[in-house]
């Protein structure tokens, strides 16, 4: 039963969180608890946001291989951030308060993705190769534009940008945590209300409209939520390419149900568990720094290739 599986996933996450908080604890708890607690919350939030965003994205685009990151969503976020630093100058950007800045970036991100990614809901939706090409081109375009702007910047502005945008699992941006959690929570709540309609959207455009679901409106709204969740995760830990793919594939594998009422919580729990458990393992047990993303990207890349090779031509 999917409900039992969700409980097992929740228990796993609780275990991982306990290990993250307690393993290798040295020094006073009054320092450790808030320090580790903040990082734990950030990792769990990022994992959940990426998982939910990927499942949503795959539902509205009607495939199981592409993810927001593969389609260049987080490259877009980096580009927006770079453009902001470029326009405002290093000093101007650094003087902005982090929170309104994050809000503005998220808003811009939602705007940009809404205008660009309407393409994804068009007629070529079921054409995997076309979607993949669009993603590769967008991703490369965004990354190249960002690199171009970075080259034109003066070194001080570049240093500011580096400090702002190159976070990782090891050094999470915790100052934005509360705001990011609030935004992600709002996005999550909005999608939870659509969970039954999303089941129908997954059937495709014609069947969904036939069943009276506003397919196009829900698709656009969901892509906005995806943009929001990607902004949250990218702001906290930086771009991750294939992590979402692993999480969404595992969620479908574990839940084995077409219902988003089960899929969405499963994806959130699995995403959070992988990041928390993985970070615990690498930092505390193996004593390594900043290698989790490499392993995740490697495994996710292999999975991506396997899915792509197995996909039947459409």
């Amino acid at each position, binding site marked *: 039963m999917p409900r039992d599986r969700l409980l097992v996933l929740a228990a796993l996450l609780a275990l991982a969180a306990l290990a993250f908080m307690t393993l290798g604890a040295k020094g006073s708890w009054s320092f450790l608890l808030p320090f580790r607690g903040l990082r734990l919350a950030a990792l769990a939030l990022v994992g959940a946001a990426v998982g939910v965003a990927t499942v949503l994205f795959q539902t509205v685009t009607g495939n199981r291989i592409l993810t927001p990151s593969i389609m260049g969503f987080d490259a877009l976020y980096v580009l927006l951030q770079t453009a902001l630093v470029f326009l405002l100058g290093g000093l101007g950007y650094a003087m902005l308060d982090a929170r309104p800045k994050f809000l503005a970036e998220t808003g811009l991100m939602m705007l940009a993705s809404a205008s660009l990614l309407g393409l994804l809901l068009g007629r070529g939706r079921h054409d995997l190769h076309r979607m993949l090409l669009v993603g590769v081109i967008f991703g490369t375009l965004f990354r190249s534009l960002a690199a171009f702007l970075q080259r034109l910047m003066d070194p001080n502005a570049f240093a500011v940008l580096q400090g702002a945008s190159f976070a990782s699992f090891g050094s999470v941006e915790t100052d934005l945590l509360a705001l990011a959690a609030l935004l992600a929570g709002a996005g999550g709540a909005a999608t939870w209300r659509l969970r039954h309609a999303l089941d*129908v959207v997954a*059937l495709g455009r014609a*069947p969904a*409209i036939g*069943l*009276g679901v506003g397919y196009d409106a829900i698709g656009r709204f969901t892509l906005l939520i995806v943009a929001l969740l990607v902004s949250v995760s990218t702001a906290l830990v930086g771009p991750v390419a294939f992590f979402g793919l692993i999480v969404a594939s595992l969620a479908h594998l574990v839940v084995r149900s077409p219902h988003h009422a089960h899929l969405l919580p499963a994806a959130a729990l699995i995403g959070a568990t992988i990041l928390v458990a993985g970070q615990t393992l690498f930092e505390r047990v193996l004593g390594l720094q900043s290698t989790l993303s490499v392993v995740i990207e490697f495994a996710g890349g292999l999975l991506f290739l396997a899915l792509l090779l197995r996909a039947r031509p459409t």
Partner: protein
Amino acid sequence: MIEIDRVSHGFGRSPVLRDVSLRIPKGGITALIGPNGAGKSTLLSLMARLIPLQAGRIAFDGLDVSRTPSNELALKLAVLRQDTAIATRLTVRDLVTFGRYPRSGGRPGPEDHAAVGRALAEFDLGSLAGRFLDELSGGQRQRAFVAMTFAQAADYLLLDEPLNSLDLTYARALMHRLRSLADDHGRTVVVVLHDINYAAAWADRIVALREGAVVAEGTPAEVIRPDHLRSIYGVRISVIRHGDAPLALHHLADPG
């Protein structure tokens, strides 16, 4: 009754439908026929609100498709299209349960489960209910989709070329089921068909389109006549009678 008033439609600059007005009465099977590019599928998609109307009006029993909320229309009409590729892995029972979505809002109750059970029984899907769609043959999958629209319990059923990619056993069986939907369950079926002989044998009424305009409509005996076929398809086709229905010998060479 389906009222289609002065509907015109175009993709880009090329017009697909020109000022089509049509009345399709309630009950029975109405077949839309015509050569490729005549606008049959476009007309059906407009009726099913899959594409928005550019000009004109379409109404089902007085419900205007461009004004009535989509979920209200879902109680009135069900649609089945040819491209039924679904990314989600669904069992037959999951799929048929989706037919209840307009009534259940995604939380099927006892009444909905009963309706799903009836649909599965009606279409001989009882033994396949737990199977995944991708494990079924094309004909079985098609049957599951028709069962879903049956569970939707809408008065009107619109089908776009349902016989494509079905071999003749399945094609006949599907037409038989559509007939029984119309005769035993009082549904109104509108179906786009390529093969005029299927239309002649199973439909009550035929509407023929050519280049976006209605060129003939009426009973099979009224429409399937050499002079009409010539104006629809632009070729000479002999018609003989087989039982009650006309039979077009469209596969033979031009009768000299």
